[in-house]
Structure formats: C-alpha cells, structure tokens
C-alpha cells in the first residue's frame, strides 16, 4: 500500500512538472508597461490565405511613432461562422479585443450584454473618415435602441452584377437581345436546341445558374433574380411601404416559380444548376455551356477570370443586357443592399480609456498616408503611381513585392479598413487590359459601370431584418426546390396549401416581425 501511495505521489509530481512550464508561459506578457497604448485589433483579412503583415511591417512603427499606439493584429478566420465562434467565445470570457470586426447578427447579441460600446461620439472625432465612410445608412446599419454600436464601413460594391448574354450566339442564330420574359424564353430555346456554337452537338443550354443562398438571400438565390425580378418578387423581402413583406407570400411568386419550372421542364436551363457549386458554375460558362447568366463584374471580366473563356472562345462575346420585363411590366436584376463591414469597440476598451486612441487610429487610416500604406503598401516598394495618380504594380525594383504579387499581399491585409469603393481603388483594382488570345480591351470597371446603370430593386436594410429559424429555412428551401424538380406538383392549389403550411410553421410570424422591424427602423421605400 505504502509503495502504491508513493507511486501515486511521484506520478502527480511528474504531471505537475510537465504541466507547469506550459502554464507559466502565458503570464509573462500580462503586465502592463507604460508607454504606447496597446490596441488589439481583430480584422478581416483582404486575402485570407496570404498571411498577416510581417512583424517588421513599416506600419507598426509609423503608428507607434505618430499615434503612440502599439498595434496588435489578429486576422479573423476566413469563414463567417468561425469568426462568430471566435468573437462569441471571447465575449463570453469578457476578453473581447479593443477593436474588432463583427457580423451584425453577433453584434445584436453583444449589445444587450453590454460588451460593446456606442460609437456615436466617434464620428465627429474622425472627420476625414466619417466623410468618406459613414453616411446615414451606414450609421443606422448598426443602430440599436437609438444608439450606434458599430462603425459600418463600406463593404462590397453595390449593384456589381449583371445579366449577361452571348452576343456571338445571338448573331449566329440571327436573334436580337431579349427584352421580355417571352423573348427570353425564345432565346433560351434557341440557345439550347439550335446549336449556337456550331459543333453539331446538343451540349448548350439557355440559362446557367447555381443555388446561392444565405441568411438574407433566400432560395434560389441571386443567379435567378432576373427571372423573379420580372414578376416584382426578387429578393427575400419586398421593401416597399405599400407592399412590404416576404416575397414568397405574394401571389406573383407563384408566377415566377411557374416560369422557372417551365425553364426546367423544357430543359432550357442547364440541368446541373441544382448541383453546381460556384466554381462549377464558373467553369461551365468558361466552357461555353450556356448563353445567359447573372454574374459578378470581376468574376466575369477580371483578367485571370476571363482568360480561360478567351482562350476557349476567342470569338466569343458576352454583353450586359437589361433585365427582362414581365407580364406586368416589372424588371430587375435583383435587390441591392448596402454591404458593410462592422467594426465594434469593446466596452472593456472604453473602460480602459482607449476610445480616443481608437478614433485617432481610424482617422489616421483614412488620411492619405494611412490610405495608401494600408491599401497598397509603400510607394516605390509595393506600388508606383501612374500619370493619373492611380497605384499600379509597375516599374518596381522588386516585382515580387508588388501589392498584387504574392510577396506584397501581406502588407495590404488591412486594406478593407481603408477602402470605401472610391475611384482610385476601383481603377487600381480593375485596370484595363488586352486579352491574351482575342486581343480585346477589357475592364472589369467598365463592366461594373454598365451593370450599375441597369434596373435594380432597392432593398437597403433588408439584410438587417430577422432571419428564419433553421427548420423554417429548410422547409422554405426544400419546398421550393421540390416544386421545381417535380417532386411536388406546381399547381395553384398545391402552392396555396404549401404556403398555408409555411405560415403555420412560423412563416407568418417571420413576415410580421420583419415588417414591424422595417417600419420601426424606417427601412421601407
């Protein structure tokens, strides 16, 4: 017995010996030192796979010298749900960083817990940044009970997608650009059955798409919004004051579904659309599989993205067209919202007196010095300016360090904190180029500008409306896809029964809460 006890004691001692050095490591840097204020920033990386700014990044020193701030950076995980987990775990431990990017869903949970601080007083402390980044829509995006709890910076560019059609196919078949849904159907049939690529095979389809859904974009997602837009039911929500509510509850939604069902039944939409992922869809149009699609400007026209299509079809040409008009005169590429990236300040940081330092840091980022340093790096090292003052990756002593080269990308990881979709960024991001095979001049920016002139449905704030619970969401998505695939018969009677069931399962409640929220927050048009 004595021996056994000795063994136990010895082993416990061994465990402690092994563990102690590991435990003790963490406490070394806890002590606060006088000097620069430490600001811990959890940011969303511009290029997630590229890695963080290096430890000797010049920005750290400039920020320390000019603002007396010791900036500690952490890149948030690339996936939004991982970001949420990380932020919420830190919140639970009252260990949120001083300044952090957060999704609105999570912010709505942090505000009632008192873990984030209001930022209304910061706008006037940051005049340059406020003028460029924060308008009234931005301020209201993170407003709860009359106070704004996050700095909503501009996110992705509005209206950056368009309806595209293969003009070379139209020309070959002697067709004109479709303007109505009937004409669109006729063109789809011709693209499917009249061999537009002239290879003698039945290997083309009229329309191409894939299911692209998230909490705010319900099934079938944005790729098919021009079809639903022709019936005035594009997007999850109708945001007009006179007809606010879930589009699925509008009678026109059945008509849009019927058109989509007709496309599927006639086989004039690529039958793989229900199975495609984003990459498959993009590979498919580059392989000439379909002739009409809704696509994003850069995904279509940026040099690397367009190159395979150019190589495969040197005479191929996509043009941006107006959305088709439906029977009642509706037409839309889809709904648009104002995309934002929200940066919140923790209540802990405010308690520690860091709020003014954070304001100074953000204001410096918006200054010319911060804007170019965070956006493109060091002039002469990572970029040069062309005759128009636009940063370009040319005439650099070491091209590997160009802001667009793998070696230079780490120093621009914070650029989403300074970019506001201004002209300089867009010119730099989307330069004109000559395609390798067909020698066409292309510009994703020109494409964007044209896309923005088309008819869109304003739905600003619709992405702040309540989201359905998982069961209701599943019922919604599964039911609609079953109507299209034929698992459920799409008749008016069946549809009404299904809608009744949807309402009973919580759809009516979701609709009512959404409308109430939209009215309360003046989001209706």
């Amino acid at each position: 017995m004595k021996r056994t006890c000795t063994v136990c004691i010895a082993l416990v001692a061994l465990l402690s010996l092994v563990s102690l050095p590991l435990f003790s490591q963490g406490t070394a840097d806890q002590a606060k030192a006088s000097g620069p204020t430490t600001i811990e920033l959890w940011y969303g990386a511009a290029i997630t796979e590229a890695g963080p700014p290096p430890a000797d990044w010049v920005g750290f020193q400039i920020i320390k010298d000019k603002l007396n701030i010791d900036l500690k950076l952490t890149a948030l995980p690339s996936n939004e749900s991982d970001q949420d987990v990380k932020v919420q775990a830190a919140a639970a431990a009252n260990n949120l960083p001083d300044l952090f990017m957060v999704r609105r869903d999570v912010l709505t949970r942090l505000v009632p817990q008192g873990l984030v601080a209001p930022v209304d007083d910061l706008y006037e402390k940051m005049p340059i940044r406020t003028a460029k980044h924060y308008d009234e829509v931005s301020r209201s995006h993170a407003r709860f009970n009359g106070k704004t709890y996050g700095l909503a910076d501009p996110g992705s560019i509005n209206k950056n997608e368009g309806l595209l059609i293969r003009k070379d196919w139209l020309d070959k078949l002697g067709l004109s650009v479709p303007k109505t849904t009937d004409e669109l159907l006729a063109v789809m049939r011709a693209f499917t059955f009249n061999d537009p690529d002239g290879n003698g095979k039945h290997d083309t389809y009229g329309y191409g798409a894939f299911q692209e859904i998230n909490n705010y974009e319900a099934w079938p997602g944005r790729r098919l919004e021009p079809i639903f837009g022709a019936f005035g039911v594009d997007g999850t929500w109708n945001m007009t004051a006179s007809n606010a509510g879930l589009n699925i509850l509008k009678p026109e939604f059945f008509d849009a579904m019927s058109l989509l069902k007709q496309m599927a039944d006639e086989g004039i939409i690529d039958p793989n659309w229900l199975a495609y992922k984003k990459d498959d869809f993009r590979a498919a149009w580059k392989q000439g599989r379909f002739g009409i699609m809704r696509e994003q400007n850069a995904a279509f026209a940026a040099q690397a993205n367009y190159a395979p299509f150019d190589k495969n079809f040197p005479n191929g040409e996509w043009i941006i067209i107006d959305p088709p008009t439906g029977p009642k005169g509706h037409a839309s590429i889809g709904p648009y919202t104002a995309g934002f990236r929200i940066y919140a300040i923790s209540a802990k940081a405010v308690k520690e007196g860091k709020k003014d330092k954070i304001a100074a840091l953000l204001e410096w980022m918006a200054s010319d010095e911060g804007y170019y340093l965070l956006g493109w790096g060091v002039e002469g090292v990572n970029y040069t300016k062309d005759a128009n003052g636009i940063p370009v990756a040319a005439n650099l002593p070491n091209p590997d360090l160009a802001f667009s080269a793998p070696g230079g990308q780490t120093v621009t990881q914070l650029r989403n904190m300074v970019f506001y979709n201004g002209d300089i960024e867009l010119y730099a991001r989307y330069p004109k180029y000559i395609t390798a095979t067909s020698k066409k001049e292309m510009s994703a920016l020109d494409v964007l500008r044209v896309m923005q002139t088309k008819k869109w449905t304003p739905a600003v704030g619709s992405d702040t409306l309540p989201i359905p619970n998982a069961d209701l969401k599943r019922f919604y998505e599964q039911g609609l896809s079953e109507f299209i695939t034929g698992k459920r018969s799409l008749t008016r009677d069946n549809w009404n029964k299904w809608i009744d069931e949807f309402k009973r399962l919580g759809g009516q409640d979701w609709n009512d809460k959404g409308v109430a929220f939209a009215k309360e927050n003046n989001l209706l048009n």
Partner: protein
Amino acid sequence: MEQKNKKPKGRFTSVAVRPTAADHSFNLAVDIFLMVLLVIIAVPLWSTITLSFRPNDYIGNNLQGMFLAPWQWSNAAYKALLGNAGFVLAFGNSVKILIGGVVTALLLTIPLAYVLSIHTLPGRRYLNLLIIIPYVFNVGMIPSYLLVTNLGLIDKLAAVFLPGAISTYNCLIMRSFFEGIPNELKESARIDGATEIQVLMLVILPLSKAIIMTIGLFYGVSFWNDFFHAMLYLNNNQLQPLPILLRNILMASGMNEYVEVSAFGDAPIAAIKAASVFMSAIPMVIAYPFIQKYFTKGTLLGSVKG
C-alpha cells in the same frame, strides 16, 4: 497435381471441405463489396491528386481532369505552396504542436493509465468515475475557453494540445492494456527490489510498445488535424498551424472574385486547394505504414482481457 492431392500429415487431420455455391457467392459478394469500398476511397483521393496537378489553362470538368495525362500535369500549385512563407510557417507550427502534443499527451496518459490499472490503489473506483464523468458530460466551449484564458495559455501553442492532452478514451484503452500484463511480472520485479517507477519504466513500458505507438498515433492525428482549438486560442497569426491556413485556402475562391490577385500567384486556386489538402495529409500517410504493425496489435490487445 501431386501437391494438390497430398493429404495433410499429423495426428489430427483436417477434412478438406469443398466450397459450396453459397460459399462462392459469399466470397464474390465480399470481393465486390471490397472493390466498391476501394473505389469509394480511391476515386476522391485520385481526384484530389490530379486536381492538385491541374494546369492553369485546363478547360474541362473534374471527371475529365482525373484522366489528364501525367505529361500534361503542372507542379505550379506545389511550387507556389512550398514557396509561400505562410505555408512553411504553418507547417512548422503544426509540427511543433504534433511533437509537443504527442510527447505531453503520452507523458500524462501513461502514468495516469498505469495508476488506474493498479487494483490496490485506494479510491480507484472514484478516480475512474472522476475521469469518466467529463468524458460523458462535456464541459462545453465557454468553460474551456475561460479556463485556457485564465491559465494564460492564449497565444501559446500549448493551448492547442494541453486541453486535450489526456483523452479519456485513450487512457481507458491504455489502462485495459496495462491490466492485461501479468501481475507476476510486476511482482517478480518488486521482489528483485524494483521501485514502482522502475516497474513502470523497466517492465511495463518495454512490454507496451504497441499500445504506446497506437495511442501516440491517435493523439498525433487529432493534434495534427486540430483546427478548432487553434482558431479559438491562437490570436497571433504567426502561430497558426496548417489546418487554419488550409481552411483559409479552401475559402479563398470566394474572396478572389473581389480582388485581382491570389496569394499563390498564377497557380489555379482549385489546384492550390487540392495540393494543400494532399500535403497536409502526407505526414500522417507516411507515418501509418511504420506504425501499422503496432497499430493492429495495440488495438487488439487493448480490447481483449483475460
């Protein structure tokens, strides 16, 4: 022919049973099942490998890509990955976590399993209960996070492996193995004057290579693949291991439509994803054949008593 007709010699001769049609059918079914299993395993693996070698100008679908001739393959993705400082750093961090994790886990698990295997240990039943309760009722993410934070382990590689350094499941397997070692061996060592530490070090451990290798492999795989703890506890990006980078790479195509560049230059992003998946699996793929002999023995021995 002569060989075929030879009858087995010896005191007990077995009667050669002619396989029936049912036996043949059963064997055929087993063969088909195994073939299907092989295809299910091999096709995705081959698809990943061929995808990782796919050239940038490749036009075609995934099925066609699997039959791309090797002379059309491109190693651009591997060159880009190995030339990327972030990948090398993450790989190094993963190796540190792997080594630190396996060593720590074995150092903690072996003594605990040994102590629990001693039948005369006072309070042994309660100790077992103490270990099994958290195994059945997991404490959850937030209490674990609070504990790790309070221990000052945030931004320490140890945060990735220390919370899981003793796996109850592994510990119980090892305990069962130790219990299966004949008590007489321990007794004779004690009679020769060995202390308990000496018994463990000189008698038990040399007889337990199989279980140590097996459990070490279990730990190694779990630490190598651990994404969640690294994501949660490592804020310093310089410390992030391979699973985090892998996740970032796998998410990359969603981002690249908004930017004009990829962190991996001209290599196609799909090939980069596949290459990173393949490369991250390589260490474990290499380790398995060396540990296989212990692995089979270890798991079997641990499961049979008496």
